[in-house]
């Protein structure tokens, strides 16, 4: 009797379940039918993030987005000229595409268009169809991984930060090194050798374990004691050029972005791979100049860097009163790696021509394009809304001997700063603060053969509303051809281990003290916090 009753109950439950499933299926089918029959309007839907009119890599993960239009239900079809379209029916404005179907669709349409057909069900239960959103799928793949640092918008104090890598073909983000593993100290400027994630360097500022340069090769980090700023590997991998600076944070009382960074000193030095003896880059005079942001041309014949007169050596000039007079020139200096011989520095972009400060140069791996940031003054464009990305055609420069720069198309009214090239020179990642003047996000932009940048789009996230409430800022985005494989714990152990070797700095030959050093220290004179 009991068994029969149980079977009966189970049958009733199963029937109810089937009815529910069938009901939902019919409901969905009806909704899709009605949406498909809706007449297309002229207005384009607002998408958040703005994934309309962009060029996307064929290997990018799904561009999940939120439809910023009123509606109780949403129906989206992503389609190309070939391949299986993807349709998504959602009760919420957040649309997420299935990963494998997305990949198939992109692979079926390289060089073609990708359309988003979007319908929204209105409160009166009718469907409104928007004009199709058209994007282009590039033929050029983007490097699979993006490396960046995530931190709060800091001043002087920091607590949590880390260097992370993001697989651009999926949503997977993994930490390379989080500072909670080594006393919540600072890990920042990273430099990848030739976009090869197997070899990179990382700067560590640690009050507990000492400042150091972490050299990572073959999945193993080696600590070298010493304080460095920005680093760049020679393409041959035989030497590394570093900047050695003393950045200081200033707080401005009235302007919207209150932070400002000045460099009290900045010079360039280089060390051989595996060595610790630092040699000065000749003719870049630390006693007279501030020199920073070194970067190599891909063939390794030129070192590009930014330099200016060291104002603090001039009596009467102080960082509090004259910080906005510092304007960097973009320079280059020839180098022969075989003979370890440097040539004469030459200007590439002069501040007297631009009226601005040229910083953060990067060169595309094919050697064709030099990109850099122009801001009104100073070495830290991150805190300047007017900072924009500019491009120089180096090939044209070689022909006519003149470096002509032009403003890149990807700029916004807010700050654009840290940027990097992909290994095929067709993609650029740039930190942009568009829409949120405090928080930087990584944006990708396609660069065509003529050096024109497509409309940039923010690196997609699984949750399309992720950036809306993200209180973290992304800095120094760098593209890499594969994942960093080194174990995070091993890096932390290397940092915690006392350095067996330390950088040996060359002797200073400037007898003249910095007049800035004679100024009484102010209350914020403790360093530049963690540079963003």
């Amino acid at each position, binding site marked *: 009797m009991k068994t029969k009753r149980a079977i009966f109950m189970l049958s009733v439950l199963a029937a109810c379940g089937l009815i529910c499933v069938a009901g939902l299926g019919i409901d969905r089918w009806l909704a899709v039918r009605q949406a498909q029959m809706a007449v297309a309007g002229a207005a384009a839907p607002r998408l958040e993030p703005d994934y309309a009119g962009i060029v996307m890599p064929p290997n990018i993960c799904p561009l999940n987005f939120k439809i910023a239009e009123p509606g109780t239900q949403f129906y989206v079809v992503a389609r190309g000229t070939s391949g299986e379209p993807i349709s998504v029916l959602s009760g919420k404005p957040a649309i997420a595409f299935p990963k494998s179907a997305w990949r198939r669709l992109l692979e079926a349409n390289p060089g073609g268009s990708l359309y988003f057909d979007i319908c929204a069900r209105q409160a009166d239960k009718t469907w409104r169809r928007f004009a199709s959103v058209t994007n282009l799928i590039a033929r050029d793949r983007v490097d699979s991984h993006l490396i960046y640092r995530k931190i709060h918008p800091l001043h002087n*104090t920091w607590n949590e930060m880390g260097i992370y890598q993001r697989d651009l073909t999926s949503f997977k983000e993994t930490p390379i090194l989080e500072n909670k593993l080594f006393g919540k100290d600072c890990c920042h400027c990273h430099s990848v050798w030739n976009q090869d994630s197997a070899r990179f360097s990382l700067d560590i500022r640690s009050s507990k374990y000492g400042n150091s340069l972490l050299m990572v090769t073959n999945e193993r980090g080696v600590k070298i004691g010493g304080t460095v700023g920005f680093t760049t590997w020679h393409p041959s991998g035989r030497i590394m050029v570093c900047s050695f600076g003393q950045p200081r944070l*200033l*707080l401005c*009382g009235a302007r919207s972005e209150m932070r400002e960074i000045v460099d009290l000193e900045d010079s360039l030095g280089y060390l051989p791979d595996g060595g610790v003896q630092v040699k000065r880059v000749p003719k870049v005079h630390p006693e007279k100049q501030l020199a920073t942001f070194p970067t190599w041309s891909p063939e390794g014949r030129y070192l590009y860097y930014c330099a200016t007169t060291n104002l603090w050596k001039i009596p009467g000039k102080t960082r509090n009163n004259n*910080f906005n007079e510092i304007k960097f020139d973009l320079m280059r200096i020839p180098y022969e790696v075989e003979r370890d011989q440097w040539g004469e520095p030459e200007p590439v972009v002069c501040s007297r021509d631009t009226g601005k400060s040229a910083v953060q140069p990067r060169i595309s791996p094919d050697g064709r394009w030099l990109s850099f940031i122009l801001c009104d003054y100073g070495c830290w464009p991150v805190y300047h809304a007017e900072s924009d990305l500019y491009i120089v055609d180096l090939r044209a420069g070689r022909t006519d001997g003149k470096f002509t720069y032009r403003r890149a198309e990807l700029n916004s009214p807010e700050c654009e700063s840290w940027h990097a090239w992909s290994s095929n020179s067709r993609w650029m990642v740039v930190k942009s603060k568009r829409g949120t*003047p*405090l928080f930087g996000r990584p944006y990708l932009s396609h660069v065509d053969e003529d050096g024109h940048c497509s409309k940039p789009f923010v690196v997609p996230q699984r949750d399309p509303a992720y950036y809306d*409430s993200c209180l973290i800022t992304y800095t120094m985005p760098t593209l890499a051809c594969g994942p960093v494989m080194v174990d995070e*714990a091993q890096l932390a152990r290397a940092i915690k281990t006392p350095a067996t070797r330390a950088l040996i700095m060359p002797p200073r030959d400037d007898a003249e003290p910095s007049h800035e050093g004679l100024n009484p220290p102010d*209350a914020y004179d403790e360093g530049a916090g963690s540079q963003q």
Partner: protein
Amino acid sequence: MNKNSRARWPDWLKTPRDFLRGLLFFGFVFYFLRQQVDLRLIYHGGGMLVNFPTFYWGDVFFREFAAYPGGVMEYACALASQSFFDPWLGPLVVTAMGWLLYASTAYYLRVLGMGSVGVIGYAQPLLILALYARYVNYAEVLPVAGTLITAAMSACLYLKIRPHSLYLFGWILALFTGAVYVIASGAALWFIGLCWLGEWRGNARWKRLMIACLALAAPFIVGKLAYGTPLSEVWPQLNAHGLRWFHLKEWDQAMVNALYLVLPLATLSGLMLAQFGKRSPVAPAAGFSPSNGNSRGDLLSSVFSTVLLLAMVVATGLLSLNATLRAALKVDYYCWRQRWSEVLKIAPEAPRTAHVICAQDRALYHSGRLGDDLPFAQNSEVLMLNQKKYRPDWNAIDLYIDLGFINLAQHHLAESVEYYGERPLLLKRLVLVNRVAGNDGTARIYLNALAKVPFYSDWAKEYLRKLAAKAPLDDDGEVERLRQLAFTKDYIAPLPAEALLLHLLERNKNNRMACEYLLAHYLLSKNLPGFVKEISRLKDFSLGGIPRLHQEAIVLAVRALDLKVDLKSLPIDLGCVQRHDEFARRLKALGADAPHAREILRQDYGNSYYFFYYLQ
């Protein structure tokens, strides 16, 4: 109901007396947490408490926790901690955790047949109460309690269903250990330990004990397979909720460790009793009532035990309470809510820190008394909290917003977020300062974050809706007021207090707080020429007359320093002049012995500026 059926009931429901005892005990715990400790103060933090867990609704936040073993428990504890926002819910949640801990301990001991020592479970809620009353390592209490509850409940479940077959036994134990490791990582160690103790008295004891040891391999396997954790990292993770030696005062650490050790020690002592005392500690009922409680003696014993337990709650609550820290927290709590009369009432109980004094002076200003009463600060660095050592300064944020130093407020907010975490109070202020600065895009980011915070969600969503619709907002008036005060001319911070306040008044001469603080700054630094120069600014405000303290300073400037004062028809009270003359006469009579004069004149002139100027 017969005795056998009642024996299956949980301890706290066995008899009405047990139930009543439990109810009274936990009722008292709740009362102390609600009335004495006031968990809202811990939620507030006041720049004195760090490490309060952040929590956001949504799968993005949850996925961060799910990515590592023990994350689920941390997530649950972070969520539970948010209840401290509410004056009733917080104590209720903590009391419930205490009860769960007690119940799981008592139940575990009963499963082992040691119900008579189950009463020791009451020690755990007492320790929890004491830890919260100390306000020190509050952030550890819920995770520790959660770890112990998970371990004890899992051990109970395991001991109930353990198979006789040694082969199955090993597999099930490993399965349990793995699951406990996933939920609460460190609980796996305690779970194995409790199971080990549970097996002590069974058959095939040694084999089972060995297998229990082998079960420790489960976390290493699960860690490697599920989370990709290197084997070398599993042990630190397991030990993350073990006996940790915090950098805290010894007494507080001892309490945390005691919380961990109550159950294993009770079990061990029960086993020792059984082993060496040649008698079983098994008792038919838990707690203090070994019999069915019908006799008069049992009744008395039950009443006595209940009274004893309640006395222990009271003693724990009173003895462990950190009253001065509570007062300091309350000062800041009321300060942030602009309940100035309560600030002035509570502040005398708080330690004389710069933050408390600064809060008192703000309260004086907002009560319209800063010109009448002597500022509590003895120097303007404390009045303005502009000394280097006070950074990152939670307490300076509202002071600077009040005065119109929007950028400096933003600086301290940014530093505080980094130092104290993404606290909703800070995020709310960041919305305000960014709106004042015209950075609505940034304000939206903070609002979107707040929309995911329990108790702030509705406010943030409504704010966002109005912001999007460009509808009037509740704080539009305040935003506009602050925009009128905020600097337009740039400068590099920090400037000395006087320069900052003069900048503010240059920007907006109607900034009354800046004016009163400037005058207070002059008074505290005994700069009467400066004071006299700026006193005419009072004319810009519709005052009934010159405040008493200012009158005294004017009289002093005229009589003692022979300065000229342009009062612009503001009258001076004749009584002030007479009081000065009387003070000067008595001071002269007392001669050069300042300490003696201070003692004599304090009674009559202690609250006067004359006394401050000459004798402090």
